[in-house]
């Protein structure tokens, strides 16, 4: 009896010690969600099991009991052994990634062998806690939500933003089909999708803690998984035991999430910068618009005055030109009425010549010849400074001809032109004296004999 009491006392103390000294570890054994909350209040010292992308060594061995995955499966062996500060990664998770995933690889000689080939096996994890942590503006860690620990396939996760708004996460139920009743490893994936969660929720860090899992449950109702030894390992890190036994591997894509969160934060900052840039651009555009407006108004008035000035100038110019245009019209009409064209005059003259030649013949030709003689006297021959002796031929009695002449005699030798000028000047004097004498005689004839020059 005493031994029983001592054992119970030890068990109780161990249990209490576990809850008190290492709450983050011990809580994993507990399905009570409230105690889990207490563990989360330890900021900066919160140690978790199997946080995404931080399991440096996640492997172990357990013995399945009562058709369940042992609590030790996740608590003792998949814990994070290092010291982890959530704050270190607070800014690296972006809920805008919309989903997260966990992957298990189960292999071994135990339960999978019990399932027949082609049978459907549903695998679900229950007693699993998945919590979202975030820091407030002061850097204080807060838990925002957690999974329903009863059944991961039916759990709901809510994310809260800074305003207290809740956003539901859609969970995923994964059914697995046994491809062979051999030792082929089975890949199990589970996760949750963020549904209608805006990207502007507060920065969050995702922490997932496994409380436990249900065992295999095939459609044949065979539950002979009891007392089967299972091994697991973290596939991602490559640690684990012999693949001949059941291994549980945990993988995550959180590294991608972290990168995307960084991109998200950067996008937010870029968005803020863009907003300010847009505001600045807007202000500048407004200023430019007003400046352009005033410029256009100024140009409009300038154009208006210019156009008005040009209009009045054109008007006055047209008014000034109006009399001349009227006169031009009148003059053109008069010219057309009274002034014959040059072509008409030429044609008229030719017609007259033709008419006179036809009618008067020789008389008209003599008249024309006399005009030619007068023109010949007026225009005269060319001053060649030579004497051209005409060619003369005389018919002799014997029938022969005597001819002479036809010579050009140079009157003015080269470089003696001044002699020709002096000769012309002398003849001019003689002609002038003769002209004056002739005029005197004409004058005497008309006026009287007594006139003397």
């Amino acid at each position, binding site marked *: 009896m005493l031994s029983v009491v001592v054992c119970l006392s030890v068990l109780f103390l161990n249990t209490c010690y576990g809850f008190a000294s290492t709450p983050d570890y011990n809580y994993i054994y507990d399905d009570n969600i409230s105690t889990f909350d207490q563990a989360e209040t330890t900021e900066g010292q919160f140690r978790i099991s199997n946080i995404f992308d931080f399991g440096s060594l996640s492997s172990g061995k357990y013995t399945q009991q009562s058709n369940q995955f042992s609590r030790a499966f996740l608590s003792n062996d998949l814990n994070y052994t290092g010291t982890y500060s959530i704050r270190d990664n607070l800014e690296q998770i972006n809920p805008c990634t919309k989903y997260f995933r966990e992957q298990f690889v189960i292999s071994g000689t135990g339960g999978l062998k019990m399932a027949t080939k082609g049978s459907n096996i549903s695998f679900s994890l229950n007693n699993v806690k998945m919590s979202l942590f975030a820091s407030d503006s002061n850097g204080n860690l807060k838990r925002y939500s957690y999974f329903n620990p009863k059944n991961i396939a039916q759990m709901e996760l809510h994310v809260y933003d800074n305003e207290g708004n809740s956003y539901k996460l859609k969970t995923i139920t994964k059914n697995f089909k046994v491809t062979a009743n051999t030792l082929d490893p089975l890949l199990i994936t589970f996760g949750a999708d963020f549904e209608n969660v805006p990207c502007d929720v507060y920065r969050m860090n995702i922490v997932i803690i496994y409380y436990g899992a249900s065992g295999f449950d095939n459609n044949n109702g065979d539950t002979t998984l009891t007392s089967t030894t299972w091994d697991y390992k973290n596939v991602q890190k490559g640690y684990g035991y012999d693949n001949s036994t059941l291994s549980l591997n945990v993988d995550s894509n959180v590294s991608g999430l972290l990168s995307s969160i960084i991109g998200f934060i950067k996008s937010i900052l870029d968005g803020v910068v863009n907003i300010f840039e847009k505001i600045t651009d807007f202000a500048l555009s407004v200023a430019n618009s007003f400046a352009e407006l005033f410029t256009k108004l100024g140009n409009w008035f300038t154009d208006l005055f210019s156009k008005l000035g040009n209009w009045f100038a054109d008007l006055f110019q047209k008014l000034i030109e109006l009399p001349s245009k009227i006169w031009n019209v009148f003059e053109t009409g008069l010219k057309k009425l009274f002034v*014959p064209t040059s072509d008409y005059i030429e044609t008229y003259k030719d017609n007259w010549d033709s008419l006179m030649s036809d009618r008067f013949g020789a008389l008209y030709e003599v008249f024309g*010849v006399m005009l030619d003689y007068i023109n010949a006297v007026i225009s*005269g021959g060319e*001053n060649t400074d030579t004497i051209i002796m005409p060619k003369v031929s005389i018919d002799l009695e014997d029938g022969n001809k005597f001819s002479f002449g036809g010579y050009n005699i140079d009157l003015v030798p080269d470089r003696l032109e001044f002699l020709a000028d002096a000769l012309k000047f002398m003849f001019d004097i003689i002609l002038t004296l003769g002209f004056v004498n002739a005029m005197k005689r004409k004058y005497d004839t008309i006026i009287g004999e007594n006139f003397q020059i």
Partner: protein
Amino acid sequence: MIIELVMDTIYSAISLLTSPINIPSLPPQVTSIMATFYEYIHMGVGILKNYTHYDYLLILFGVVIAVNIALNIYNFTFYIARKIPFVNIN
């Protein structure tokens, strides 16, 4: 237009009036002689140009002709005037 119409009318009238007249042209011999004489005049003027300033000579020649014509007109006018008794010009 009006002047052209008047000129055409005159031309048509003269043409109509002179339609009976049909004097023959000069015979070719006469035309040849007159052309030769024209050449002589032309040549003679060229000779004069060698000894005188022909433009000056033309001016004097024109004046002499004008004076002679005026004198003839004057004599003819007074010849007519002397025939009129009551003008009493001697």
